[in-house]
């Protein structure tokens, strides 16, 4: 899956799951702020990415995934 394809899939997915406007999801936007994630719902981000892309984001890697751009890159580099 190319990065463009990942972006096309991730943005509407997260917008629906976390009930935010898709237009707010941009490469430079901070994931936690945009999706209004707290320490609990951060797990939901991991779960939905794993479910959709079969890509696990271990807790140790989470600090490196700050923006949506980081997330696209992470999925691109870890997909099977």
């Amino acid at each position: 899956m190319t990065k463009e394809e990942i972006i096309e899939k991730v943005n509407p997915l997260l917008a629906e799951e976390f009930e935010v406007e898709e237009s707010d999801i941009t490469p430079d936007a901070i994931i936690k702020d945009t999706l209004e994630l707290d320490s609990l719902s951060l797990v939901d981000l991991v779960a939905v990415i794993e479910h959709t892309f079969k890509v696990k984001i271990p807790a140790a890697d989470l600090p490196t995934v700050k923006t949506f751009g980081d997330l696209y890159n992470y999925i691109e580099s870890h997909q099977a």
Partner: protein
Amino acid sequence: MHRKLSYIYLNMSNRVVITGMGIWSCLGTDLETVKDALYNGKSGIVFDQERKDLGFRSALTAYVEKPDLKKLIPRNQRQFMPEEAQYAYMSTLQALQQAGIDQAYLDEHEVGLLFGNDSVAKATYQAVSKIYEYKDTSACGSGSIFQSMNSTVTMNLATLFHLRGINLTTSGACASGSHSLGLGWLLIKDGLQDCIICGGAQEVNLECVGSFDGIQAFSTREDEPTKASRPFDRDRDGLVPGGGAATLILESLDHALARGAKPIAEIIGWGFSGNGDHISTPNVAGPQRSLELAIEHAGVDIHEIGYVNAHATSTHAGDGREAMAIANVFGDYKVPVTSTKGQTGHEMWMAGSSEAIYSILMMKNNFIAGSLNFENPDEETACINIIPKTQEAHFDMFLSNSFGFGGTNSTLIIKDYKD
């Protein structure tokens, strides 16, 4: 704000009134609709093809509308709520509104919460399935642990409404929703709480009732879903599972009057007992003691009780033995008896609370809803006065039974409140 210990030692005996009611059931999602459904003998039972496809012996179930909470509760809180908590939220909103209790009141006073619930099957199944599928517990998501604990209804409602009084789930099988009212009555009567949100909730899904179907407890009258639940009838062949949620606001009479609330009815007695017998087959002596204790607590003559809302679920053994228990307690007095489960199916963990509401609606509107599908008694059920068709009737007091697996019994006596 904080209750003083001295209350505990006062040995108070408060009158306990109901000031608000809310319902989310297969008969409707507001009191007026449910009242009309009761009067008109509407059935909430349908056939569910998905259950049949999965090998259920009986694919019958009550149909309960799913509430849309998106506009009411933020996603970060909603994700903790399985369907039973969603039903309970809706019924509690209604009950609080009728009681005239708003969020500002809840924020300033110590209000308790007692809700009957005895399963979280779908949420548990979904979580465990994800662990097996992904070999990763994070795949369960953040809401799963809170959805799959038996106290999910009380933990969600207490959080959403900022409740700071007693916060407890009563799990007493199919008597759960009655035990919550009984315990609420006791705590308020004794002065330990002024106001408690009580109720019962029941998930409506195949995950919850598959194993129940497996012990052949359900009616197989699939070609006539609305005739399948037939409490006390000679041709009954099992229960039909249902659910939803029901909420009643209980408070001391003094507390209600002091804040200008209008009491609807008064709980005057609670009886309970254990059968000490078989896990699923009821006996007569256990339920009978529950009825007797409720009457003793209420301090009333049996002739004052104008209606009995029976537990009767449409099973052969249960209905017959309850009929005998009622007959033993009421003797020559042929008190009118019905089971609303002919219309609703068995609302299980919710039933004790919903049936209190159904009975109060009848009492306040001067009718007894006919026991739907009761056509002929059998040898055991012929000993009581079962009302087959809705009739205009005035009564000021009723008795409501709820019995459950393991031999847990609960009986409430509720009377009309008049200024």
